[in-house]
């Protein structure tokens, strides 16, 4: 029994930080990729800001004090009768309402006084209108009732990036468009990952006939031309956000199946999985506790790239006119407008820059995530 608990193998007994050390090392690897780390921060700031789009760009005030009562028009839809009118909704940009509020209290407006659908009716000339910084103040204000001296001819009524061909503010449409693109991409990515991981896990773990039949089905399924199907469906029903999501989901879930299946096939004969079998652990527990974490590494590494792919898909459908219903704020529609209005280059340029910056950020984040989960760096 000499040396049973003796020296050669010993572990440092230093106090240690709480939490899983692997997760901590991954986070350190992620931060070591400076480009990806900063991209994540920039992306998060933009995304969180656009989540509150109603408080940044809106044709309603955020807060109104009217006859001693505090109102929240950005959140609550007040009928016009509240302000002495008769319409079902209140048009706060209407000079009549604006004067009424100014006489009986005050209004706190967001930075941009348009939402994605607001048509500006005091444009200096027919839409599309160029960015405001290309015009003098006289030009911008020429159609306001009192010209340069009009109390409404102020910064938050300017069009910093111009308007589209229907007189809607490009900045407002960008903010709302960015939000809907990322949200759509996120929902599509999350749901298709869940389906894909589950399908891959079942195939890889059980193998044999299950795997064989499922694989053949996926081969047939991926051979269905998704674009044609979309064209046919969108000619029958109007594609809303959820309908579009459902159709794209039909085909996007297969992208992860291969990786997860391969990961399960590889890992199902690992010694620690065999050890769990020898302990008598049940199959579902083995899948969840021992195998799924393996597959999650591959999945998480792919996630940012799937997200950027989903965003690109939505944008291209919008560009072709088969995407979200007309009038929705969308980056693809902005690009299409740029193509149709070559005399207004700010439309195409803005759309192009926004999409390329968003894609670049996502790809950089993806690279950092890939580094973070690199087993050579994490488990070395």
């Amino acid at each position, binding site marked *: 029994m000499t*040396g049973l608990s003796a020296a050669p193998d010993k572990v440092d007994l230093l106090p240690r930080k709480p939490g899983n050390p692997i997760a901590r090392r991954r986070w350190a690897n992620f931060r070591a990729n400076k480009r990806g780390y900063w991209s994540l921060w920039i992306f998060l700031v933009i995304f969180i800001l656009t989540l509150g789009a109603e408080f940044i760009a809106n044709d309603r005030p955020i807060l109104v004090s009217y006859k001693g009562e505090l109102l929240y028009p950005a959140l609550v839809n007040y009928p016009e009768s509240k302000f002495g009118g008769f319409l079902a909704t209140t048009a706060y940009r209407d000079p009549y309402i604006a004067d009424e509020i100014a006489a009986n209290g005050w209004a706190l407006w967001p930075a941009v006084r348009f939402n994605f659908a607001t048509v500006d009716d005091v444009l200096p000339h027919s839409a599309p209108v160029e960015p405001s910084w290309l015009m003098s103040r006289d030009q911008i204000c020429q159609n306001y009732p009192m010209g340069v001296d009009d109390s409404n001819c102020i910064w938050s009524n300017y069009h910093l990036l111009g308007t589209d061909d229907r007189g809607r503010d490009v900045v407002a449409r960008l903010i709302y468009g960015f939000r809907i693109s990322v949200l759509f991409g996120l929902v599509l990515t999350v749901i298709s990952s869940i389906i894909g991981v589950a399908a891959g896990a079942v195939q890889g773990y059980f193998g044999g006939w299950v795997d064989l039949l499922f694989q053949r089905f996926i081969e047939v399924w991926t051979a269905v031309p998704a674009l044609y199907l979309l064209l046919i469906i969108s000619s029958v029903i109007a594609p809303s956000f959820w309908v579009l999501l459902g159709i794209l989901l039909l085909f996007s879930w297969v992208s992860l199946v291969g990786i997860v299946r391969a990961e399960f096939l590889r890992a199902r004969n690992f010694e620690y999985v065999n*050890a769990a079998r020898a302990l008598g652990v049940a199959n579902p527990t083995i899948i969840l506790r021992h195998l799924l974490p393996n597959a999650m590494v591959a999945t998480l590494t792919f996630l940012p790239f799937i997200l950027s792919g989903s965003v690109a898909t939505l944008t291209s459908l919008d560009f072709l006119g088969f995407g979200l219903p007309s009038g929705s704020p969308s980056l693809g529609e902005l690009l299409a407008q740029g193509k149709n209005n070559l005399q207004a280059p700010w439309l195409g340029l803005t759309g192009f820059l926004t999409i390329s910056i968003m894609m670049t950020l996502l790809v950089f984040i993806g690279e950092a995530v890939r580094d973070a989960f690199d087993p050579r760096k994490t488990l070395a």
Partner: protein
Amino acid sequence: MSAPLLSVRDLGVRFGDADAAKNVSFDIAPGETLALVGESGSGKSVTALSILQLLPPTASLSGQILFKGQDLLSASPPALRKVRGNDISMIFQEPMTSLNPVHTVERQIGEVLAIHAGLRSNAARARTIELLDQVGIPDPASRLAAFPHQLSGGQRQRVMIAMALANEPDLLVADEPTTALDVTVQAQILELLKSLQQRLGMAMLFITHDLGIVRRIADRTCVMTAGEIVEANDTQAIFDAPQHSYTKHLLAAAPRGTPPTPRPKAIKILEVENLRIWFPIRRGIFKTTVGHIKAVDGVDLTVRQGETLGVVGESGSGKSTLGYALLRLLSSNGRIVFLGEDIQNQSWKAMRPHRAKMQIVFQDPFGSLSPRLSVADIIGEGLKVHFSHIDAAERDTRVSKVLTEVGLSPDLRYRYPHEFSGGQRQRIAIARAMVLEPKFVVLDEPTSALDVSIQAQVVDLLRDLQSRHGLTYLFISHDLKVVRALASSMIVMHNGKVVEQGPTEQIFANPKETYTKTLIAAAFDQTAIGSPPAKS
């Protein structure tokens, strides 16, 4: 000593902040064999790789490596290429991965000849055949078109040696060239290296962890630990009068002790009759079965309470497959009676109550622990399945208790496997099996991935646990020294069949089959002089 062929001065190798080797200095004279001995992580391979500068670019080197007066560390890449494979060649540990799987033998050896000697077509072919003949490959002309996967492990290593010798180098660096081979093949390869060295008059730097090999082959020996050479002397002197405490520790580390005595009257824990595991070979469009690979072919065995049955054989003999089949982790044919109950045809679910009583410890302590679970979760997993009535606090107590029992501090239970060394991980794997209080444990080469000094500790631990809890072991190993220290009786397997069985001492004293004799000769020929007289 004449002018050294290779002279290493104050070599230091750093990866980031960690010293892999420091202040390493040694000389090799022409025609001499120098052995670098050490356990894993001692810096011996790093030292060998730095001679030809084959380390990854993250390594920073310092010091001097003088080969025939030329400093290799400051040599330009073209100058280095001239030295590599021509004046200094190298043999690696793993014969499967060090040959390119898509090139034939002729092409691999021909490449070396073409680069340094400028030999082409017929001249190269003639030289290749000559080389293959030299390294003892039978009928070399017919082997030229063979791919690596068509050769056995020993033959592959011979091809590697032929490649290394192609240009008659002055120095051969052999990095654990026999570690991945079976004992009988190991002996042949060592024989070959020694005779080739004498015939060609080359010097050899031999890296190994196996002291038995060192004693057979080396003129001088350097003992390395933690990146430093702690002792360098003539091999004989080191073995006869080790100076440094680490050398003494290494020499004393061979597994020892006596196995429990066989108990022919104890109750039968496990009884197996005519166990067969045949994998069908299917050919053609209709996948008709044309034959079988008989991994395990008609094995009978009986294990009695408190005994250890050793299962010995070389790789591919079916010994691990047998162990898996006994625990019903692989499907098989034949009768398996465990504690008086036939378990062969029981369903997966019906097997579950038995699993607490029959456990397994795997070979690779790095692969058998889930990297994402803490030690407490790993050990507690079986408790959750089999002792579902106990609460978390009680589970924690049992985990702590079993950790103490395997010689680890219970404070370590919230750590993750990668924070432990190989020996500690194997202790955790043993704890995972022991916490269920099993009656019967299959030990599938539990010591072969460990360093010698750790091996001895694990063997001691296993024997201690056995005597304390009256455990019954099935000990699978290719290492006859360990089997001799642990097993009361043994079976020898060859190509899926049991060729010999009986009490261990009887087989060692008087082996009947030629195969057993070869195994014993190969294992103890190297170590008879190397290991302390602990066994007889």
